């Protein structure tokens, strides 16, 4: 268990103010916030790169506040990979093994490197130089280097931010799989709600050097405790589901409903539908759109020139309408409506 108590730190213009966090054994914990919110500094303080001005950090009930990074049993993965350019992939991955208390011999070091590389699907890259790798391969190497020492705590500083969207998705899956396998307590810093939503057991929202809210992704998404959190997370229809491919399309089961997507992926997925892409009608529609649901208006939020509705169909959809369309349709809380959206508007993000 990680216990961050009342940490404050001033670094140049920047200030972290009385941060309290507690991360459970084996938990995947995301710290979510916009750029400049102090996430990375917090992570580096947990790692021991910086010392907090006041406050303490406990890892498994042991105060590590005054220990060197090497004595904290942690590993760190940065957004920009930070592979040692003077070593090949094998030497990078094996780096940490030379400094453990285990005193491994050459053979067991090598077998451990190969096993870890195997796990990350980079066995064929071991003799390559980091500069010849793609972004995804670099980050896989960095992750392998971090987990090979079997740290008590894995710190990930925006590990997916420097990758293109395809690679991002694949590596997100990989992080999930490794965590299910190793159960290493993980703190993952990100500015993407999508990322936190798909990965985290719990998330903390950070902004301006403070923690604003802590909870499961669902709690934070459904019950944001401030306008900042609401704005930051409340823009998308995001749902967990299980996908099977049928007739070249994905059919995703969400809360008993089936949603069709033209993106193809199987297994556990997270889907997202932009509120503007959903069509509302009072009668069922026979159209080219693959998705159609009946629901009840459960909330109406009036904006400047648009209206946001929450439609409960068993799944809570957010829909955006022009004011005029809203008035024309004569809707109010409790009205029954039909939702329609195209398979191509259903994005599979994980």
């Amino acid at each position: 268990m990680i216990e961050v108590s009342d940490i404050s730190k001033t670094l140049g213009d920047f200030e972290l103010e009385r941060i309290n966090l507690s991360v459970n054994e084996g938990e995947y914990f995301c710290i979510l916030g916009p750029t400049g919110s102090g996430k990375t500094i917090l992570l580096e303080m947990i790692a021991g790169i910086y010392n907090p001005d006041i406050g303490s950090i406990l890892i498994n009930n042991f105060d590590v506040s005054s220990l060197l990074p090497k004595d904290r049993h942690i590993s760190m993965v940065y957004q920009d990979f930070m592979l040692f350019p003077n070593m090949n992939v094998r030497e990078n991955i094996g780096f940490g093994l030379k400094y453990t208390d285990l005193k491994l011999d050459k053979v067991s070091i090598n077998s451990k490197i190969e096993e870890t590389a195997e796990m990350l699907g980079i066995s064929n890259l071991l003799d390559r130089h980091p500069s010849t790798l793609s972004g995804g391969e670099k980050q896989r190497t960095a992750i392998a280097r971090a987990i090979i020492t079997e740290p008590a705590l894995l710190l990930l500083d925006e590990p997916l931010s420097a990758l293109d969207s395809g690679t991002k998705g694949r590596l997100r899956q990989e992080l999930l799989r490794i965590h299910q396998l190793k159960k290493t307590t993980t703190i993952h810093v990100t500015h993407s709600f999508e990322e936190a939503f798909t990965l985290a057991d719990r998330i903390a929202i950070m902004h301006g050097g403070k923690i604003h809210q802590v909870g499961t992704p669902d709690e934070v998404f459904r019950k944001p405790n401030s306008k900042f959190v609401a704005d930051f997370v409340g823009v998308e229809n995001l749902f967990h589901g299980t996908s099977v491919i049928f007739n070249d399309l994905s059919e995703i089961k969400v809360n008993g409903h089936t949603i069709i997507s033209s993106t193809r992926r199987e297994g556990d997925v997270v889907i997202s539908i932009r509120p503007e892409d959903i069509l509302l009608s009072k009668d069922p529609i026979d159209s080219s759109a693959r998705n159609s649901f009946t629901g009840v208006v459960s909330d109406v939020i009036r904006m400047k020139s648009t209206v946001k509705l929450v439609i409960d169909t068993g799944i809570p959809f957010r829909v955006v309408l022009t004011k005029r369309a809203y008035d024309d349709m004569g809707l109010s809380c409790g009205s029954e409506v039909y939702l329609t959206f195209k398979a191509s508007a259903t994005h599979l993000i994980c």
Partner: protein
Amino acid sequence: MQRNGFKYANLFLMLLLTLFIFTLILEIITHTDPVSLITNIISPEIQFAIRLSLLTSVISTFMCILIAIPVSYSLARYDFHGKAIINTVLDLPMALPPIVAGLGLLLIFGTTGVGSFLADAGLKFVFTVPGIIMAQFAVNISLMLRIMRSTFEGINPRYEHVAQTLGCTPFQAFIRTTLPLSKNGMIAGSVITWSRGIGEFGAVLMLAGATRMKTETLPIALYLNMSSGELDLAIAAATILILISGITLYLFERKGGVAKLY
């Protein structure tokens, strides 16, 4: 075409300056005939000067690296009170005429308690070979500091952070990551320091003096032989120095970006 008047005037001046500098070098090299140039170069006096110059410049360069690494690392990575003042003091030798630096060294080692303490301990700098090394070191350390500092500043500190989380002490992390990554800057800095060490005249003259066959480096040999009217020996020394400058410049261009520091 009318349009290129400005351009042609510029290019003409450029060629003129190039010619001037080229002539400067050529005059020296061609002043004696090749046979007597070689004879003079292999004379015992010039041979002594070459050996002494190489020895002292290699040692002083080595000292510069050894001191510059921890000091410039401190300037690049740590924040502390008084950093600006310390920085200015450390830059001073670069702005100071070498002959003044030489005088300062002479006063430190010739007139103070520290100087006589070192002399009693067998480390004499005044009018000795160690004095040559000390003079070269004092004049060149600032430039080496600047080059190493900007080299370290160009290396992401996160390499060391990662190495530390993987089990290294701060010192080990530095040795395994930042130090090997600073290789190019270190080579470039060493080449400049070495070349400037070999060519150093004013500071060496002040501290180590100009004694034939004793503290006679190549620039001192040039000076001594000009004073005694032995032009051919002076030219032999100058030719070797030109050769060394040419090699330095060549090595330097190959190291690219770092050259801009100079």
